[in-house]
């Protein structure tokens, strides 16, 4: 009941560099976000491959040969892991971004996500077949 103003709201700063350690869900989010580093790096690798392809057979085969190194295998394994994680997170949230309403009801999210996984599997198999892996 004082006449003087005694408010002094306290602001808690969010730690700029370490906030994502606070909750597991933030860690999951950051894991999803860093997939871009691997996807980006891998895409640059593809670009180099295309460059080598355009330069001629010898250059291209040198490129393929260069891929056969332990570092490259490790990189590939990491990139594969992160890109699969990216795919899963991407498909899991697709129903949020693109809900489908048929008549009154919304298609259950699981159906949309499931359809994506199915499409992904079919496409991947097709690519592998085409590439003559099997």
């Amino acid at each position, binding site marked *: 009941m004082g006449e003087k103003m005694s408010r002094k709201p306290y*602001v808690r700063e969010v730690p700029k560099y370490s906030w*994502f350690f606070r*909750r597991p*869900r933030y860690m999951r989010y950051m894991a999803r976000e860093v997939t871009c580093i691997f996807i980006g790096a891998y895409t640059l690798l593809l670009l180099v491959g295309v460059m080598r392809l355009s330069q001629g057979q010898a250059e291209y085969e040198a490129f393929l040969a260069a891929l056969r190194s332990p570092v490259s295998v490790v990189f590939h394994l990491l990139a594969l892991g992160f890109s699969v994680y990216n795919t899963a997170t991407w498909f899991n949230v697709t129903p*949020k*971004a693109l809900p489908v309403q048929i008549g009154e*009801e919304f298609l259950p999210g699981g159906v949309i996500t499931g359809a994506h996984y199915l499409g992904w599997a079919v496409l991947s198999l097709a690519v592998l077949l085409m590439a003559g892996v099997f």
Partner: protein
Amino acid sequence: MSERVYQLEVLRYHPETDSEPHFQRYSVSCEEEWVVLDALNRIKETIDPTLSYRWSCHMAVCGSCGMMINGEPMLACKSFLRDYQGVIRVEPLAHFPIERDLVTVIDDFMDKFKRVKPYLIPKHEKPVSEGEYLQSPAQLKKFKQYTMCINCMLCYAACPEYGLIPKFLGPAAISMAHRYNQDSRDGGRDERQEEIATTEGVWECSFVGACSEVCPEHVDPASALQQVKIKSTVDWYKEHLMPWVKK
């Protein structure tokens, strides 16, 4: 009915005497089926009448009792003691300034909520004497979920982007704009876009999705924000690449 003693660690802050908040431990006897809010009420009644917090409905509909319980944004009236083990930590909602104890300053949310024009801007004006606008159950369902927001701001406390970028309009405000945009009776999307299709609007959202995970009413604000992004993107391409297409 059986009572048990629970330990609560509550963040206290008193602006007239404290320079910063500190935890205070209470042991309080509660019934096992109680919620955290009941425990706080018992503390206030029997141990410490100076403890301040907001509440009213005790049924998860008024939206006043949002707090951090063991680090998660929760409604105190819907957090059951039986779901916790050991000491229960109770703090004011994250990302909002603390006025006192568990009471936060929510001016920022109230301002942002108003800015998005969260009211019906009719597509076709019609006098009341001509009766209701028709709206099919399917049209209702299209936006119904977004009307369920109780303005509890748990989503703001969960969204790291709001914590990092305080200017961000945030999940609940944008979801409410989306709610009206999706309403078959409404024609105000262009006006609302002026607010929500801005950098501080939907574009500060990086789709963390935490907002939807903590929302007690299953509003799913993350979905609203992504849909707003898609629509704004389509708008942008139409406007800049196909100027001949009239809206």
